[in-house]
C-alpha cells in the first residue's frame, strides 16, 4: 500500500470571496435613493402590528399620536426597514412566477442577496444581525428609501449550515426629501448549504 499525500485544502470557496474582502469600504450603490414600493398607510401599519400584537396608540390612534407630539400616526421604528423594500413586481414587468415547482423561487426579488456584487452567487442567505440608530419615526403618508450600500466587513467562514461569508453593510433610511430617518448596519451570511443539507 502506497502512502497517499493528504488532500489539498479545499480553499477554492474561500478564494472566491477575495474580491469582496478587497472591496471592504466600497459603496456598492449608485448613489441614488432606492425607495420602497409605497407610502406608509394606516392599513400597512395595522398589518405590521397584527402578528406582533403590538398595541401602542401612537401607531393607530391619531389623537394619541398628536398628544405625544406627532402630526399623524407613526410607523413603528423598526418597520422602516420593511418600507424601504422595493416592489416585487410592477406593471409592465415580466412574470415573477414562471415555474410551477412547489418550492420554485420568483424570477426576481429585492431581498435574498439577488445581486451578490463582487462575491459568488450563493443559494443560501440570511440576516445575522442589525444595528439601527433612529433619527425620528416615520409618519403615515411618508415614503422610505434606502441610500448607500457600503460594505463594512466581509469574513469568509464555514459554518454548520454551509460555506460562505459574513457581510456587514451600512445604509441610511431616508424620507422623500432625502433626510435620514435612520442609519443601519445589517449583517448577513451568504452561503452554499452543505451537500445533502436537510436541517436534521
Amino acid at each position, binding site marked *: 500500500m502506497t502512502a497517499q499525500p493528504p488532500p489539498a485544502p479545499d480553499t477554492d470557496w474561500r478564494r472566491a470571496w477575495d474580491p469582496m474582502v478587497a472591496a471592504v469600504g466600497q459603496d456598492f450603490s449608485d448613489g441614488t435613493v432606492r425607495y420602497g414600493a409605497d407610502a406608509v398607510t394606516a392599513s400597512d401599519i395595522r*398589518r*405590521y402590528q397584527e402578528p406582533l400584537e*403590538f398595541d401602542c396608540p401612537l401607531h393607530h390612534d391619531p389623537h394619541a399620536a398628536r398628544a405625544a407630539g406627532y402630526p399623524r400616526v407613526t410607523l413603528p421604528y*423598526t418597520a422602516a426597514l*420593511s418600507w424601504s423594500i422595493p416592489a416585487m413586481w410592477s406593471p409592465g414587468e415580466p412574470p415573477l412566477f414562471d415555474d410551477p415547482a412547489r418550492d420554485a423561487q420568483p424570477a426576481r426579488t429585492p431581498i435574498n442577496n439577488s445581486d451578490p456584487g463582487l462575491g459568488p452567487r450563493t443559494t443560501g442567505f440570511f440576516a445575522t444581525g442589525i444595528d439601527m440608530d433612529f433619527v425620528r419615526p416615520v409618519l403615515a403618508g411618508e415614503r422610505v428609501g434606502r441610500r448607500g450600500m457600503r460594505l463594512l466587513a466581509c469574513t469568509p467562514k464555514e459554518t454548520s*449550515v454551509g460555506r460562505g461569508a459574513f457581510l456587514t453593510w451600512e445604509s441610511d433610511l431616508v424620507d422623500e426629501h432625502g433626510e435620514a430617518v435612520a442609519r443601519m448596519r445589517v449583517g448577513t451570511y451568504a452561503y452554499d448549504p452543505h451537500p445533502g*443539507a436537510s436541517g436534521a
Partner: protein
Amino acid sequence: MREPAAGQGGPASQRYFEDVEPGQDLAEVAFPLTVYRLVMAAGSTRDFNSIHHNSEYARATGAPDMYANTSFLLGMWERAVRDWIGCAGTIRAIRGFRMRQFNLVGDTTYVRGRVVSAGLQDGAGVVVLEVRSENSAGVTVGPGQVEVTLPLRAAGDGRVTFG
C-alpha cells in the same frame, strides 16, 4: 424586580425617567411561533424569503425548519420596549441585535430585558436597556442594547417634540 407594562396608552400608565433604576426588569413578552403567525409576519414585513414560511425550503438551506425573519424579531424587541416606555418614550438606537440561534416554528420566543443605566443627557432622560430573545434552546437574539428616552416628570405632560 419585575415592572408592569406601561405602554398601553393612557397618561396614567406612562413611565417617567424618575421612576427608573438600573436592574429593573421589563415585562416579558411571549411570541408563540406558529406557521400561521410566520406567514402573517412574512407578509407584513415584506420578507418573503422562503426560509421564513416553507419548512421544506428552509431544511434544504441547512436550517432545522422555517424560522422567524429579522424584521419580525426586531419588531418583537420594539413591542417589548414600547410596552415599557409608553407613548411618550422614544427609541434612539438598537445595537447588538445578533442572531445566535434560529427562532423556529413550533417554539415560543420570549423577549426579556432589564435597565442597564439611566442618566440625563442634554436635558433628556436617557435609559439603556439590555434586551434579548430566548426560546427553548436558550438565547436566540442578543443580548443587545436599546437606547430610549423617557419623559421627565418634572418637565410636564410627556409630550415629545417632532421634527
